[in-house]
Structure formats: structure tokens, C-alpha cells
């Protein structure tokens, strides 16, 4: 009975062992001021949304996202994805006054993201974040189907439930297998989070519309768990981390798979319900200088903005700023120009 899973794992290990390019890239940059490049590139990326031509904005955004993935894999490996970012931020702050370069090394990514969010809105999520981008690209495959479901208010369907169940079972089996064949990091909460995700899928399969906004509060919980974990020095990996890790990390791979599968069924599922970093970003961007102003009186309730939005943050011209990723799809989609992007330096 060990045949298939074993072979699969061997394959995966080999697969990830063989793409050494990541490691080489890191080696190449080691010792230089990687973190400075971070600031440079992230800064540029964050400004980009505001200066790209309006006509082909979404194309530019896709490009930016791809660029974001590359940057994160090659350069920003220090941030270990969204979980590690919180932890390393803490670590970096602790180095202030002792090892200033290390402090910059760890803090540059989160600080840049928070600062640009406070000024230019939560554009990181919509334009740069590799996890977000991964989900969005995955979601494109099932776009038609998810859109149909969304327009019908995510109705209950046996097929959906069955698939979710299947994924859940496969996932749990895998976890079980990993648990018996190797020693995990016990505290590796990636497993935990992915499990939560699977459970979520189940819940959502039943009553998406009613539960949606409430479930999004889980993000707050996840944020605090990560922060407390960081304070206690617990080691945490997160989805998409596998790309940058120097070793084959089954937990990260696992959660990446779950996130992608999740994103196939519900667009940006990770961002909606679980991303801890999203908490910080939406907090920072709450009173950002740049924001999308909507003139609801112009709205004809055509539903185009709602259709486009990956995180269901907009309905009939009203944007929920807590959720908005600043992808500006709604701005581009609106036929009556309800939305305008505005700068207000006095915004309080």
C-alpha cells in the first residue's frame, strides 16, 4: 500500500530538489544588499498602479503580479510569505539598535508594504502579492463556473459538496501519511491552517451568502495567532513558501495545494478568510491618501462591478474598504464611471 504515495512523494521531492534555480538565485544575491532591492522594487511596484495607462490597466496589473511573484521568489525570500512576514517583522524590530542591517533586512518588506498601503491604498494585495496572484491565476481556470455560482449567491450543490469532501479526504489522508512517515515540526501551523481551509469549504458549500462576511473575521483570529506565535518564537511556514525554501517542505506544499484548490472553487479564498497579513493591510489602508471614491447616485445597478470583484467587496457601487484589494477591476468595469480614484491628503 505504500507504493503510490511513496512514488508520488519521491517525485515531488525530486521535482523540488531539481529546481535549483531558486536556490542559485539566492546564492547569487547573498551577501549583497538584497533588502535594498526589495525597497526599490516594491516601491516601484506600488507606484505603478497609479501611473499605468488606464486603458490597459488590467493587463498591466497581471504583468505586475507576475513580476511580483518573480520578485518574491528571487528577492524577498526573507519574508517567508505572509506568515513569515509578520514574524520576521517582529524579529527585525528586535534587531534595531543592535544589527541594523539585519533589522532592515527583515523589516524592509513589511514596512514598505504598510507604508505604501497607508499612502496608496491596499494596492499590494491586488497588484503584487504572490499568494494573491497565485490564487487569481488559478481562479481564472474556473472563472466561468465560479461566476455563475456567485451570481446565484453560492447555492448549495451536491457536486460541490462531494468535491470538497473528496479534497478533504485526500488531504487528510496525506496529512495522516506524512504524520506517520516523518517527523513534522509539531508546531507547524500550516497544517492547521490548511485544515481550517478545508473545513471552511465545507461550511461554505452549505451557506455561503449568509456566512461570508462573518467568516471573514477569522482573518483577525489568524492574525493574532501569528502575532502570538511570533512573540513566542514559534516557527511557521505558509503557502507559497515552498518555492523559496531550500528544502522540500511538505507542509508548505500541502497548504499551497489546498489554497490553489480552494481558489478554484471560491476566488481568492485565502485572502477572504484566512490571510493574516490582510488584516494589517486593511488596517493600514483604512485612511489611505488614495482611495476609490464611488458616486452611488450614478449607479445603475448593472452588477458589473460585483461580477468582476474577486473578493466580493463591491455591490451596487458601494465598496467595502475592509475587503477591497485595490485591483481596480470595478473601476474599469463600470459603464457609468461610478468610481474615481482620488487622492485626499486630508483624509482622516
Amino acid at each position, binding site marked *: 500500500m505504500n507504493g503510490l504515495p511513496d512514488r508520488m512523494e519521491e517525485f515531488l521531492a525530486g521535482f523540488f530538489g531539481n529546481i535549483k534555480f531558486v536556490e542559485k538565485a539566492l546564492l547569487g544575491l547573498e551577501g549583497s544588499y538584497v533588502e535594498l532591492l526589495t525597497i526599490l522594487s516594491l516601491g516601484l511596484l506600488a507606484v505603478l498602479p497609479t501611473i499605468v495607462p488606464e486603458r490597459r490597466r488590467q493587463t498591466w496589473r497581471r504583468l505586475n503580479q507576475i513580476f511580483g511573484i518573480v520578485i518574491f521568489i528571487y528577492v524577498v525570500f526573507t519574508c517567508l510569505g505572509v506568515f513569515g512576514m509578520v514574524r520576521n517583522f517582529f524579529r527585525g*524590530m528586535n534587531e534595531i539598535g543592535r544589527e541594523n542591517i539585519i533589522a532592515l533586512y527583515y523589516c524592509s518588506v513589511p514596512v514598505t508594504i504598510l507604508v505604501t498601503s497607508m499612502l496608496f491604498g491596499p494596492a499590494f494585495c491586488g497588484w503584487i502579492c504572490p499568494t494573491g496572484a497565485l490564487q487569481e491565476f488559478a481562479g481564472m481556470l474556473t472563472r466561468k463556473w465560479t461566476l455563475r455560482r456567485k451570481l446565484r449567491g453560492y447555492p448549495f450543490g451536491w457536486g460541490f459538496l462531494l468535491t470538497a469532501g473528496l479534497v478533504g479526504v485526500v488531504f487528510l489522508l496525506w496529512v495522516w501519511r506524512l504524520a506517520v512517515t516523518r517527523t513534522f515540526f509539531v508546531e507547524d501551523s500550516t497544517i492547521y491552517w490548511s485544515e481550517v481551509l478545508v473545513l471552511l469549504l465545507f461550511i461554505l458549500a452549505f451557506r455561503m451568502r449568509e456566512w461570508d462576511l462573518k467568516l471573514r473575521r477569522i482573518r483577525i483570529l489568524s492574525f493574532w495567532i501569528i502575532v502570538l506565535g511570533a512573540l513566542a518564537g514559534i516557527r511557521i511556514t505558509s503557502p507559497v513558501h515552498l518555492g523559496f525554501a531550500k528544502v522540500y517542505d511538505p507542509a508548505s506544499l500541502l497548504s499551497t495545494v489546498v489554497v490553489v484548490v480552494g481558489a478554484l472553487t471560491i476566488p481568492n479564498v485565502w485572502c477572504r478568510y484566512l490571510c493574516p497579513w490582510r488584516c494589517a493591510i486593511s488596517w493600514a489602508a483604512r485612511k489611505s491618501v488614495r482611495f476609490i471614491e464611488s458616486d452611488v447616485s450614478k449607479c445603475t445597478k448593472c452588477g458589473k462591478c460585483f461580477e468582476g470583484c474577486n473578493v466580493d467587496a463591491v455591490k451596487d457601487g458601494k465598496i467595502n474598504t475592509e475587503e477591497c484589494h485595490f485591483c481596480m477591476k470595478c473601476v474599469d468595469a463600470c459603464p457609468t464611471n461610478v468610481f474615481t480614484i482620488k487622492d485626499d491628503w486630508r483624509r482622516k
Partner: protein
Amino acid sequence: MPRSSARTVIPLFILAAHAALHAMLGIGGWLRPFELLSLLLLGANLVIALCLWKGSWDLPSGTCTMLLIAGHGLIGQRLAPDSLTSGAMLTVNILIVYVGVKIYEHLSRLHFAAFAGSYLILFYIFLTRMQNAEALFLLFLMGLAATARDFKLLTYFWAIVLSFTACQPYAWETTFSSFLILTALFSIRDSNWNPASVIFLVGGMALLLFVLLPVIVLMAGEDPRNVVAMLKSESVRDALRLTAVTATISTVILAAFCVPLAYALSRLDFKGKSLLLALADLPIIVPQSAAGLAILKVFGKQQYLGGIIFDAFGIRFDGSVFGICLAQIFVAMPFILKGSLAAFESVPVALEGAARTLGASSFSAFKRVALPLAMKGVVAAAILAWARAAGEFGAVLFVAPYPETAPIAVYNLFNSVGLVQTAPLVTTILLFSLAMFLALQILVKLAPGLTRREGSGA
């Protein structure tokens, strides 16, 4: 048109000067003329000049940016250790200039002065007073850029900067406490603002933080690994488990009796009610050691009530889990009683009347109207009682020094090995209690049925 001529002349002039200087300095050997980044910067200036000329970039910030880029291309490129550093510096500088110009344009002079002053002070602190702090300078400049447009944010920013520069090694503690104070101060409603109470507030909070300082320092200063090691030790786990279990049992017993009692007290008026309420406060007044002795005197194995119970049921109180619970119940009772009493008193009797005319029996009215409405207060009181029970030391020490609960474990360890070795245990216990406390609070916040009061409909 004067404006369009400025839009042609200024960019053109800067661009020309940049290019000319670039060539001259390159020939003069100051910089390498064909280095990639320098050329890129020259190109960037060309692009910006075009933007300015076409009118798609506003003149002030565009001009400043051009000057900055030119400066970086000509001087910074040579000074910085490598082109990456130079590039990062340039990014941050552009951000700063952009924000500066915007603040100058859109906000008051005072804002601009605060911004510029902050910049200079940061410069002074990081580059002249600290060693190798260029990296930090960059980091904090970004923070400044994000916060300069609002005095409140700027104050928070400075609280962080000062904590991490002047108040090392207590940076986190200072940040934490100053944030608390600042948040409290900033969120005072304007209408109630008056100097006297604000000064009282600051003074009071200073004392409070002073009192809490040992706890904070202890917790923040402990190496997490020691805590984890502590958590792995069997005896500590046992003590913690015992504490949690006994406190929970006590709270459940208390809730079962005191919540209905509180309801009755809030609804009924009878002679001796105020006496009863005063008596309920007794456990707070009586010293805990005295309470412990008193309990022992009555419930001890050889004493009469304890003797009877022991004979009848085989339950002994001294030195057993029952004794621990008994002591905890004794000390925690006033908290849950008073808390739930206040909660029930805030529920209008008329609502129960309405419930009864709608067909509810008095029990049902309690269950479906009074209890849900008072639930928030009741749960808060129960949490407080739980915390009190878990932290009880004096009474428990007398009644049941063994099995060890967490507070007693600390005491015993301290007696045997002294302060230094006890610290990790104390931190562990503090963290444990704090975590439990927070978890309970969060649970209450998250559980929708419990707190759905004055419902925020949407």
C-alpha cells in the same frame, strides 16, 4: 502661456544640466559614465521631462523628482557603496520628496514644519548619533512619509522611534505603554475634554503602568525557549492543568448558584437584602489566610462538618481537589455575584413583563429574556471569577497545599531555589493566565449568540 512655457523650460533646463554634468563628470573621472544605473537615471529624467512637458505630471513634484534623480545620478552614485543601495536611497528619497510636496500643497504650514523637522531630527539621531544606522534611517524615513500628514499618526510614529532609539533595551515595553497612553488620549471625545481630567488621566495611567511594569518586563524579558521548556515539564503541566480544571469547576458551581441568586436579588425586594449584599462582600474583606483557616476549621477532616461529610461520602477537603475548589469558590464568589447582579439590574423588568403577557412562564422569561440580555455582563463576571479562582493563593495554601496549583507551585519553587530560577515558571504562568483570559474574552466576542445585544442589525 506662461504655464506651458515653464513646463518646457524647467524640465529642459534640468535635463540639459543633468546630461552635461554627467558627461563632464564622466570625463573628469568622478563617475563611470557608462554605468547602468547612472544611464537609467538619465533616461528616467528624460521620461519625466516628457511627462512634464505633456502635462501628465504636475510641475512642483515633477521638478523636485528630476532634481533628486539628477543629484543621485551625479553624486549619490559615487557615494553609495553600490548601485542597489543608491537605488533604494533614491526610491525612499523620491517618496519623501513626493510626500513633502503634497503636504506643502494640501496641508497647513504647521504640517510641513512638523514633517521637515521630523526629517532633520531623524537625520540627526540616526546618522550622527548611531553607528551604521543608514539602513534604519531608510526604514524610518518611510514611516515618516506614511505618517506625516496627520499629527496623531506622527505622534505614534515618534513614540516608536523614541522607544527604539532612546529606550533600548525596553523598546517594546515603552512602545506598548506609550501606545496605550496615546490611544487613550487621542480617543477622548472632544466634548468632554478638559485639562484637569486629562492630567488626572495621564497621572493615573502612569501609576498603573508603573504597577504593571514588573509583569510586562518579566514577560517580555523571558526567553521563549525557557517558557516552552517549562511547558514541557510534567509537573508544571500538572499544576497548570489542575489550576485550569479547578478554577473551571469552581466557576461552573458558582455560576449555577450565583447567577440565579443575582437574578432573584435584582428582582426582589425584602428586608435584610442590603445586609445580604454586604455579607456577600465578606470574602474580599477577610484576609485570605484567615479565610483558609476558617474553611479548614469547618471542613477539615477532623472538624465537625468536614468530619460528617467525610464519614458520609468519603470526601475530604483538606489537601484535595475538593478543598481547592472550596477555597476558590469562597474567594471568587463576590465577583460573579456582584457582576451578574449589575448585569441583571440593567435589564428592564418591563421586558420580562412583556414576555409574560406573550405567554412565557416566569422561568421561561428568565431563560429567554433576562438571561440573554444580561449574558454579556454575566459572562464577564464569570471570566473575572475564573481568573480570581485560578490566581487564588492564600486560602488554597491553607486548605490544600497539595496537589499543587500554579500559584502554589511558584511559591514552593521560590522557597526552594530562589528568584532567578523561578522567573521562567512565573512567566509561563502569567502567559498561561493571560492566554486563557484573552481566549475567554475573544470567545465571548466571537460567539454571536451571547452578545447579540442592542443588535447592530446589519
